[in-house]
């Protein structure tokens, strides 16, 4: 799984810590999410997408898509 979190975060000038605070998780969670090493819950995926003003489909890219 690949994500566009880092790219969109940079677009909105947000640090990992700021994004983490906005969605109510630890910074580590954002780090693992960006690396595609963590499979988030639907709620967290939606929250991140909401903060970055995008959709879940655009945020997460699956290799088999």
């Amino acid at each position, binding site marked *: 799984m690949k994500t566009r979190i880092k790219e969109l975060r940079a677009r909105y000038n947000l640090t990992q810590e700021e994004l*983490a605070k906005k969605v109510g998780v*630890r910074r*580590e*969670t954002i780090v*693992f999410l960006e690396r595609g*090493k*963590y499979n988030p*819950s639907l*709620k*967290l995926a939606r929250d991140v997408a909401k903060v970055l003003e995008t959709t879940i489909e655009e945020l997460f890219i699956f290799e088999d898509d």
Partner: protein
Amino acid sequence: MKIRNDKDILRFSGIAVLSILTGTLMMNFLSGPTYFGIGSILILMGITAIVIAIIAAATPREDLIKDERSVRVNEKAGYHAFVILLLTMALLQAISMIWRLNFNFKAVIPDLFIVGICSWILLRWYYNRRGDIV
């Protein structure tokens, strides 16, 4: 390193200092081995609480947030630590049956407890580091 001094930390430190003070007063002004024992336990508890408060104060607040990832890490580590505990007990039982040892399980309960706690702590650290918790 940033040390936090919020209300929770100060309250906990206050309880710790109070415990040490009570223990010291008890040991100095009340006679008898019982009071000496209770006093020393109170002092020990106070010192432990101060150490915990210092560790907690040095940890950033966001590291203490219980988000879904940390909950999953805790659950997975707990489950695997429990499996390790059961396997250790099964292994001990098997060894005692094969070599016909007169094994007393009651005597090894503290060791099993340590095995369980250590596995949980190590697994938690490992899963937290690895990241790919599903």
